[in-house]
């Protein structure tokens, strides 16, 4: 009989050995699949790494994918740390995009020094407000925030579609001939384009830069502030927190809003760094909000690890598109990416739990077993 038990102590070497082991596992499993489908595993791996990270311009391209994943990853990590399951980063990102593009249209004749901070702020506020809805429902009515935040993703998706396709909204371009041919959002003025910082030939999007500071901020918050401590206590036991005099309801709404603010910032960055227009179809196809949940899980909710994992997943996504071709279907790329993530998460299990063969020692529910243990 195989049993899985929680490790009482996590040994140090495991923390290093397990990720390496799971990487090897992923390589072996996916190589078998590649060989079975008639592809050269060596060439495939080389190309995935090269085009994802190391060839010219690859890292800049990876940062484009990693920026939204970093911010939605932080959104998930911020909430999950308190055992509050915000699945709504997707919708909060849409709302952040709505807020940031709206303020940029309103301030289009202003200078970048005014427009860009306003966009950042608008993204934070709209994302936070959207997340505060399931937060408040959780805190005051004890609804399941997994369901409510997930449902609001669909509402958010319909909202951005409505703004561009179904209405003559403030966001929609109506004046040009081409916008009558196909519905479009208003393109933002150049002053609303966020700067990209050139570091050693790599273009770092402004949103990624903010994200790195945000990660440090989140780490500080949970590590060395009263707010973070109380949030962790609530996460461990809400009733204990209540007994200790912590205002749990406020904290739940605040943490959800904080989480939503990160996701909303992701939406603002999509507009300011990359798209420069409210693009309902592209935002929904990308599904960065859901990607952020994977990022946070792989990063074990550690904000700094979120940065690394976002970069890895961004590179994996770009490298994956590079692998695709007439004889390399998208499904096979997805299988490889899935295997890598699966092995990484399975490895995670091994760090925290041990697998034992046979009966657990000393633990028993049946009197007969207890007697036998006693006899032994």
């Amino acid at each position, binding site marked *: 009989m195989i049993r899985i038990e929680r490790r009482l102590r996590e040994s140090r070497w495991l923390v290093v050995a397990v990720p390496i082991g799971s990487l*090897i596992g992923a*390589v*072996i499993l996916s*190589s078998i699949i590649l060989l079975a489908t008639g592809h050269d*595993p*060596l060439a495939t*791996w*080389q*190309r*995935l*790494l*090269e*085009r994802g*990270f*190391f*060839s010219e*311009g690859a890292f800049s*391209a990876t940062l*484009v*994918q990693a920026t939204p994943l970093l911010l939605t990853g932080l959104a998930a990590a911020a909430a999950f740390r308190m055992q509050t399951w915000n699945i709504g980063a997707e919708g909060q990102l849409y709302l952040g995009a709505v807020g940031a593009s709206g303020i940029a249209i309103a301030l289009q004749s202003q200078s970048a020094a005014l427009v860009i901070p306003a966009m950042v702020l608008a993204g934070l506020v709209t994302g936070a407000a959207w997340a505060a809805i399931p937060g408040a429902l959780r805190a005051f009515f004890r609804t399941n925030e997994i369901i409510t935040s997930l449902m609001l993703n669909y509402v958010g998706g319909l909202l951005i*579609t409505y703004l561009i*396709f*179904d209405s003559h909204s403030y966001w929609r371009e109506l004046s040009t*001939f*081409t916008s*009558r*041919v*196909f*519905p479009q959002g208003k393109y933002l003025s150049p002053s609303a384009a966020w700067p990209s910082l050139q570091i050693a030939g790599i273009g770092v999007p402004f949103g990624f830069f903010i994200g790195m500071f945000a990660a440090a901020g989140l780490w500080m918050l949970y590590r060395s502030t009263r707010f973070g401590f109380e949030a962790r206590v609530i996460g461990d036991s809400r009733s204990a927190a209540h007994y200790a005099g912590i205002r749990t309801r406020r904290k739940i709404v605040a943490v959800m809003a904080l989480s939503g603010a990160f996701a909303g910032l992701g939406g603002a960055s*999509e507009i300011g760094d*990359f*798209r420069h*227009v409210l*693009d309902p*179809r*592209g*935002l929904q*196809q*990308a599904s960065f909000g859901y990607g952020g949940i994977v990022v946070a899980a792989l990063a074990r909710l550690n904000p700094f690890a979120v940065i690394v994992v976002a970069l890895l997943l961004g590179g994996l*996504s*770009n490298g994956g*598109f*590079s692998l*695709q*071709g*007439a004889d390399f*279907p*998208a499904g096979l790329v997805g299988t490889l990416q899935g295997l890598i993530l699966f092995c990484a998460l399975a490895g995670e299990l091994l760090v925290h739990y041990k697998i034992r063969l046979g009966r657990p020692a000393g633990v028993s529910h049946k009197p007969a077993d207890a007697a036998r243990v006693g006899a032994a």
Partner: protein
Amino acid sequence: MKKPVRLAATMLAAAVLGACGTTNSTTSTSQPFKAAWIYVGTAGDHGWTQAHDDGRKLVEQQLGTGVKTTFKENVPEGPQVEQVVEDLVRDGNKIIFATSFGFQDAMANEAAKHPDVKFEQATGFKTASNLAEYFGAAEDADYLTGMALGAASKKGKIGFVAPFPIPEVIREINAVALGAQTTHPGATVQVVWTNTWFDPTKEKQAAQSLLSRGVDAIGQGQDSPATGEAAKAVGVKWSGYDSDQSNVAPDIWLTGTVYHWGPYYVKRVKEAMNGSWKTGSYYGNIGDGMIDIAPFGQSVQQSVRDQINAKKEALKSGSFYEFTGPLKDQSGAVKIAAGTKMTLAQILSMDWFVQGVIGSPKGG
């Protein structure tokens, strides 16, 4: 047990080697000319993307070993497109076709960066010296499909599952209605918007809602054949879109609008190879074969087939054009005077429904 371990070691070594970055991009003259396609959906979607991929296969077939084609599918609209294009350029592709409107901005940016590569954008409007644009007048075939729907409907109540309330789709619905009214005077076309190009579940629900309202023939402008599945359940005759979708429900299949992108792709790739490629805006139609109707289903009577084929020939020869006045809008007011042909600009920005269409051209 040993083998996988050794394999893993090799893999890791490969990973490290790959990390060192050994890009050997030697382009010699003997290598085939490379052409690439970027799809928003999957190549096997039985609809829009498949029609394009059939075109790509025709290029491989007709141009043989001189050409090497590839494609990228499920590419999300937005910044990812630029990276996919960069990757394709790095692989040595010299002509790149993008087949979704949402790819346009990225294609325009990349065209400016790579003047030696030819770019082609389907359903767009931006052009540059190395960025061309192409699309097909689906409305020609939609008119003929409408004729089949009108003839199949006993009550003259036709349903239409439509993606977005945009001119491209509005003119298709208008063409269906005008066609239906020739074979069934006074026929109406009831519209339900799905707000998606491809979502089989939503498309099916929309079709079901129309069928429950009593339509007795149903058409669609979606990328999946889900409407046919809904029609099959109640035995109502239906028409398809993009590709020949008859196999979903062959007994009740009428016909459908299909795109033949292949000949255009072959021509453009050839031109890119021999250096005669020029930019432009190409609007194909039934005359040049970019647009056609799918083979008729068995339930379409011979007399109706003859009538439709005669109209098809008239469209091809140019002796007939579907958007010629008098055309009335939903309120009955004359929008296009008798004998006047609508201009291309008017068609491309059409935002009103003709008489007999039930629904709002603004969506909802």
